[in-house]
């Protein structure tokens, strides 16, 4: 009897011990919410300012920020640009104004119960990107000086080449795909370039290895030129969602003179990625806006503050999505240039461009009589029946074997 009693006592104590050891906790430090400012000045006609409070760990949602007085000041011209007007959407204030490149701006926000919140930034330089989509036939007039090569249907698409005479200080590049399920444009997950110097902040362990297109043919000099660009793309590191170019770093490595009379730097480069729904046009006169369901590429010139913010934001975003437990214990805050609050006041200028993936479309429904190529049963061959299996670009058979 005594033994049984002891065992029962032991079991009760042991179970009590176990349940007493661990409890859930919500680690709300209970501190005063901070005012969050988010305003990226742009070359658009209307500037948007988002204001909100931070949310404590134990709260269901954020406390709405209803009352605020926000002013934009142009320090370059020493004048007040205007006051932001509260919009219908909660937390959104707007101002009809288009920011001027290289102008220095200051944002001041007054929120009852808080000290003056302010931040400053300088609008970056403008972008000047050209693009042209090369095709596999009717390329007589195509050249790298031409912004819009000719194109006919039933053609071999050689993809889009981008060119600029001078990049701004920082350029962000990303693809936007249309997602029919959500009805919205979403950022493309993968992106590569043949440019040799790209910021590695979001680099992945994978590299670009183009598929072997056995039926792709080319002996046009212009396409061969693109081929040489594409050759550089082989082995290019895959970046997650964004390419970040820094002018100074690039110029140290990659430049060419347009000519003695025109000592500007020029860049011709490819951008490749998990893009869908390509939007491309062929001649300058054929330019059209992208259809709502077409994807496109965005080039964005960034101010120094915006760069610092994006670099850290993207790093933390990716860390949160990762399975790395160490991220749970990190206590680093995202970059902010806002005094008296959190968030970002920065500036950027956007330019959207067509994007046709390199050799992503090959149309075999017709033949290319000018060059003696015909297409039959999904295979491409010369009219004299000699099968053509030379990969236009991509790793050679030897390379593949080695891989």
């Amino acid at each position: 009897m005594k033994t049984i009693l002891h065992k029962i006592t032991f079991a009760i104590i042991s179970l009590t011990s176990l349940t007493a050891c661990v409890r859930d906790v919500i680690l709300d430090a209970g501190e005063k919410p901070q005012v969050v400012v988010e305003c990226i000045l742009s070359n658009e006609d209307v500037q948007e300012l988002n204001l909100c409070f931070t949310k404590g760990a134990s709260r269901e949602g954020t406390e709405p920020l209803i009352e605020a007085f926000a002013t934009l000041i142009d320090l370059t011209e020493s004048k007040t640009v205007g006051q932001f007007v509260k919009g219908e959407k909660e937390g959104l204030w707007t101002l009809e104004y288009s920011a001027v490149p290289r102008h220095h701006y200051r944002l001041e926000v007054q929120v009852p119960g808080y000290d003056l919140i302010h931040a400053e930034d300088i609008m970056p330089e403008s972008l000047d990107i050209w693009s042209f989509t090369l095709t596999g036939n009717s390329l007589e007039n195509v050249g790298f000086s031409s912004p819009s090569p000719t194109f006919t249907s039933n053609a071999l698409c050689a993809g889009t080449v981008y060119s600029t005479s001078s990049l701004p200080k920082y350029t962000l590049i990303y693809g936007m795909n249309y997602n029919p399920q959500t009805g919205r444009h979403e950022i493309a997950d993968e992106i590569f370039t043949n440019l040799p110097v790209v910021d590695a902040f979001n680099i992945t362990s994978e590299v670009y290895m183009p598929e072997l297109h056995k039926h792709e043919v080319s002996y046009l000099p212009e396409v061969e030129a693109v081929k040489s660009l594409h050759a550089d793309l082989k082995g290019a590191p895959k970046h997650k969602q964004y390419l970040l170019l820094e002018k100074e770093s690039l110029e140290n490595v990659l430049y060419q003179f347009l000519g003695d009379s025109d000592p500007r730097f020029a860049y011709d480069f490819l951008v490749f990625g998990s893009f869908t729904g390509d939007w491309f046009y062929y001649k300058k006169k054929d330019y059209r806006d992208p259809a709502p369901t077409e994807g496109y590429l965005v080039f964005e010139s960034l101010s120094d503050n915006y760069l610092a913010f994006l670099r850290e934001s993207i790093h933390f975003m990716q860390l949160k999505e990762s399975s790395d437990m160490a991220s749970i214990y990190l206590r680093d805050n995202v970059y902010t240039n806002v005094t008296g609050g959190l968030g970002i006041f920065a500036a950027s200028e956007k330019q959207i461009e067509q994007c046709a993936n390199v050799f992503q479309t090959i149309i075999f429904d017709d033949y290319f009589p000018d060059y003696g190529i015909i297409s039959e049963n999904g295979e491409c061959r010369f009219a004299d029946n000699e099968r053509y299996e030379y990969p236009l670009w991509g790793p050679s058979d030897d390379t593949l074997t080695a891989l």
Partner: protein
Amino acid sequence: MKKHLIIIAISLLICPIIISAQEWDPQHDTLDAAVKTDSRRVVESLGKMTTSVEGVRRVISPLGEGDPIRWAQGLPGVTTGADGTTAFYVRGGNMGNNLITLDGVPVYGYSHLLGLTTIVPQDVMSEASLLKGGFEGNSSNFTAGHLKITTKDPNREKFRMSAALNNFLASISMESPISKNTSFLLSARISPLAWEYKAVRGMLPSLLGGFDNFGAGVGDVYGKFRWQTGKRSVLNASFLGSMDGYSFTAADNADEKMGWNNLIGTVNWHVDGNRSFMDLRASVNRYTSSQEQHKEYRGVMNHLTLKSSLIEYMFSFDRTESMFKAFKMDYGTKLRITEFAPGQVASVNNKSNSFLGTVYLQGRYDIEDKLSARATVRGHYYRNMKDKSIKTSMEKIKAGRFDYDASVSVDWKIFKYLSLEATFDRMVQYYHTLEGLPVGWSLDMIVPSSREIAPENALQGNLGLSSQIGKHTVSAGGFYKKMNDLVYYKYAQSLFSGGMASWESDVDMGQGRSYGAEFLHEYVGKDLYTRVSYTWSKTDRFGFPSINEGGEFHARFDRRHVLNAVAQWKGFSAAVTLQSGHWENGAAETYPMHVPGAEWTADYFSGVNNYHMPTVFRLDLGYMFSFETGKVKHDVNVGVCNATNHFNPFMLYFDAVTEGWKMIALLPILPNFSYRISF
């Protein structure tokens, strides 16, 4: 980390087995506890408190009998780490800023049994003192508290032997004269933890879940040889060896081992003169710790072995001379050669040797019942051998460095019942402890100072009043302390991490500040003894470049209020602990942000250590009685720790399964028991 907490939980769970296995029947006389009332009083001065081994034994603990650290944890100016463990902090310092010495030799890996007790057996202990300020001349190389443990001399008259058993340890000790001038003392302890685990595993396998193959090798041996070499000279030779080794297989099939060992050998020659005495001491101290993990990851077996070691050779000379009627002069030197090898992983050995030479001069002036004053100055030369002299066009940087520190204490009896006490100290510490879990495990890496990681130093002052009226002693005082070059290790709570090999790149240095008030009341009656100690303090850290942008933040164990009360009446004991919760990192405030093409939720951390953990409350009850059968004396301690089963969490961890934070407490309601026979 959770796995290691389970080990502690297991060890705490196991103890009821012992109780249920003991079919003891209190059929003998229940005599009053054999405790001398005078020995209970702990106050010697505001900065120094002392207790005898009986006072230590009366502290209620999970082992059924106390130890010096548990005794010190109940004193003013001391806060604790994880409830129930031996982690302790003195006047705002870090745990690694404390010095624990055994007969003057530092004990670096002092904890035993996963932090539940210390490696010094009670059977060999004579007394313990805690010094918080007004440090003595021969105490150096620390910046917080000094816990001095003194061993007893072997019995020179007759053979004595004792044996004891408690929840976690079985011990035996003996002492005996060898000849007219020689005697010895031997003690050995071993823990039956692994067997207890097997018993629990057999009885209630479901309790231990996926935690398997637990093994524990815990024990210690102490020996002391005394030789009366002359009428006024004694040679003592002693050694202490301790072992803590734990192994287990975790739920993810990882085989893990960890442990630490100490080996200390000391020879001390003491000579008394007519108006002077002298101590000459040599010691070798080896402390090692290790962590091993064998784990399959993506089909490949990965092995990690992390070892740290410290070997210290120390030579010291201390002399005291009575110069005049009321004036004494102390002087001496201490030379230390230390071989550090922290964080050895694979081919990385991180070895570096250091030399520390200290000389001190101390004057003491005593007018009985009126004034006691002491002034000390110490000079140190330190060199980390990996630092080389650098000569540039601008300056020449020497490889070694000189430092000076000092201590002053004054005790002025203003009136018959009222004394004014003041102390001032500047202390320098030439090694750093990269503190991890606050459970007292001796796994924290100890690393040497170098040119890049400067020695820590602290400046502190203390002013107070004390009064002794009859059976009452009351003291109250305030202190202020400033600490410089404190080390903060970013991955302190990582276990089984190869990253510890590159510790130098993961430490940050900053400052600390602590101030507060301390109060103590003691009543020593014939049968009743009470002690109430209360500390109000504020401790913060600042100036760490990578933390909180160099701004202030709470020290982790910045407990604003600490109240400890003890009452002993005849054989009964009760102890209450009420402490403000410590500080952990709170969860982030969140806010929506946008990057091109995406919206995300950003985190905002207003600082580190900004979440206040719940208040700690613990009620411990105990009963101690003794009886004799013939020449054999029996001492029995029974008690309950945390009698109210209060949940006293000491840390947080993130549960990856539920993706939520959890608080962990180590000490639930826990019966304890110890039984000792001696003859």
